[in-house]
């Protein structure tokens, strides 16, 4: 059993008691909600005649179903409009802060909470959304929950949970030029497997992680869930503290010194013990792309799609399914594969540095004929910061569309979707069958810079060849 890790310390601080069922009653510091998984939870609350216990510890936004061409109300899709207005009335009825459409703080829930300073080290954070693991980048214990648990957190600011094991993933070295956090996390999932993290919290550590920006760290924790880990985290450090200082909901200047002292005390002890430890070297990682139907079916851009014989016997039937669905030949190269749609956005890679990296690739180039390419900033704050740097103009000049913030084609609950057999190069986190809105549409996951390179050439391209030109 782990001891002395940040996970242990935060768990113990929030542990209330052991329950008769054998699990732990855990207090939740910050609860985030959005329009898709909250309506039934509020309805259940009403049915039981319960109140929201601590409304100031829940924060809401709208992201999944919002259109990205315009945020004009009422929305064209009446069901989407109903979901939004339901969230609005629930929030106003229970006194919950909503950063809704029209607010300059609206955006994807996992983008806005960190950028507003709501996400802080040492918190427990829950949200009815599996990518809540993102917030672990700050040294919080953050995880996704189901609709019944959303109801429970609203009613009691707590839930029942069993303690996870902790695996430390130590990353030596540094990422090479043209290689990003997305490539690193795809590389990790490829090696540890999509179920490898089941039952674990992932602690990402080591020289490479310490050198990453907060936005890069969020990309990695975001995808911990794709590796099967309910949560992933990093120990907070000077980079974390610098990021948080001065944000709207960060501790005030008056409390800053005390906050720092507390945050530093939470870091995993040098003598901490882990349930498991693995080590990787960042120097050896190339731009990485998925070729199949799970985030674990990934290869380096200069590798070939694995043949069934090269795979673990347990992975073969899934690989066969993937070859067929993706229409990809085992042993072929992924580089050069023709692309129809390029999507830059999502809670994995819809932040300012993601857009900057992509803009650096497209600047002075143009989207290939026949390719539809669009950029969806993760939040209003990201959109404004990008526009202040003229990134919107760079993208538009290169033939991209510049959209309003939302989840968009990450899961296609809004009008942005693939059609038929289209293939997308996407900076999002899931390449499941049908994920991007067409029952037989295909998704290749990659970094925003790689998506930009694919847009320019109309096919999967090693971004390093463009950057050096």
């Amino acid at each position, binding site marked *: 059993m782990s001891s002395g890790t940040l996970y242990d310390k935060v768990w113990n601080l929030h542990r209330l008691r052991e*329950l008769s069922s054998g699990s732990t009653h855990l207090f939740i510091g910050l609860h985030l909600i959005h329009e898709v998984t909250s309506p039934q939870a509020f309805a259940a609350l009403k049915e039981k005649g319960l109140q929201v216990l601590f409304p100031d510890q829940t924060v809401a936004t709208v992201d999944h179903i919002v259109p990205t061409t315009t945020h004009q109300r009422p929305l064209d899709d009446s069901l989407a409009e109903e979901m939004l207005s339901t969230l609005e009335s629930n929030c106003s009825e229970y006194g919950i802060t909503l950063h809704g459409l029209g607010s300059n703080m609206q955006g994807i829930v996992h983008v806005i909470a960190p950028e507003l300073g709501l996400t802080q080290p040492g918190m427990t954070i829950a949200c009815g959304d599996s990518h809540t693991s993102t917030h672990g980048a700050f040294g919080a214990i953050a995880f996704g929950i189901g609709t019944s648990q959303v109801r429970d957190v609203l009613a009691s600011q707590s839930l029942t949970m069993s303690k996870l094991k902790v695996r430390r993933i130590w990353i030596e070295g540094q990422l090479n030029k043209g290689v990003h956090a997305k490539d690193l996390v795809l590389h990790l999932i490829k090696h540890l497997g999509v179920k490898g993290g089941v039952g674990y919290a992932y602690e990402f550590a080591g020289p490479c992680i310490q050198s990453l920006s907060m936005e890069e760290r969020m990309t990695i924790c975001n995808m911990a869930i794709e590796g099967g880990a309910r949560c992933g985290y990093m120990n907070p450090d000077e980079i974390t503290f610098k990021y948080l200082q001065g944000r709207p909901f960060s501790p005030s200047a008056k409390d800053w010194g005390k906050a720092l002292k507390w945050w530093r005390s939470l870091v995993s002890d040098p003598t901490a013990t882990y349930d498991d430890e693995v080590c990787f070297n960042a120097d050896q990682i190339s731009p990485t792309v998925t070729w199949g139907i799970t985030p674990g079916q990934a290869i380096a851009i200069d590798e070939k799609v694995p043949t069934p014989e090269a795979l673990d016997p347990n992975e073969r039937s899934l690989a066969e399914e993937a070859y067929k669905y993706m229409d990809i030949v085992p042993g072929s190269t992924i580089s050069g594969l023709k692309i129809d749609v390029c999507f830059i956005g999502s809670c994995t890679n819809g932040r300012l540095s993601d857009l900057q990296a992509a803009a650096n690739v497209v600047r002075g180039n143009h989207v290939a004929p026949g390719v539809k390419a669009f950029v969806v900033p993760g939040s209003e704050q990201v959109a404004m910061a990008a526009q202040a740097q003229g990134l919107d103009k760079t993208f538009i000049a290169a033939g991209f569309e510049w959209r309003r913030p939302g989840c968009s084609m990450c899961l296609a609950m809004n009008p942005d979707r693939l059609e038929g057999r289209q293939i997308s190069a996407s900076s999002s986190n899931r390449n499941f069958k049908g994920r991007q809105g067409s029952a037989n549409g295909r998704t290749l996951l990659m970094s925003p810079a790689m998506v930009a390179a694919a847009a320019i050439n109309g096919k999967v391209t090693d971004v390093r060849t463009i950057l050096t030109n």
Partner: protein
Amino acid sequence: MNKLPKGAITTIRGKAIAIKGNDIDTDRIIPARFLKCVSFDDLGGQVFADDRKEQNGSHPFDLKALQGASILIVNGNFGCGSSREHAPQALMRWGIRALIGESFAEIFYGNCLALGIPCAISTQKEIKELQDSVMQTPSLEWTLDIKKEQIISTCGTRNLRIDQGAQEMLIKGNWDATSELLDQKEDLNQARARLPYLNNFKAIES
């Protein structure tokens, strides 16, 4: 319709209804297109929507004599497929308060219990006899006794199996996690008062 499950559940009384067939999945119980909704309220009318459409009025859930039934009798591996809580919700909102079957899919079973709906087990032979008597005499009133693990009617008494943990939770009324979490309100208040980030870090010495 009778009230939704609440508190301690010891007996369930009412008419019964039978759905025959193994491996009835949650997609059949509630088709995916009904998931884009803001509340579970309307799901009752949509339960088995596609099956009912296909059977054009002759599906058990459409038979006049079976309206108002509260005990559903099914066969093996009922509720397999996706984890959607919409499936037990739809059954519950139609009026179902208990299920008796040969076996249940694990997630479906857990979702039912979280709603206060017991899933009792019996043998293939007993289930068939139960299903037959329900369809022959729809007006029969049944009583499911959770503690005795029996289903009783004027036709006699049959023994069932109910998992012990579930049995205890239902009888004690703590199948509902929310009430257990709210049980110790003082703990919750203390946690809120203790956590540095909720209290301007006041307990931390600078």
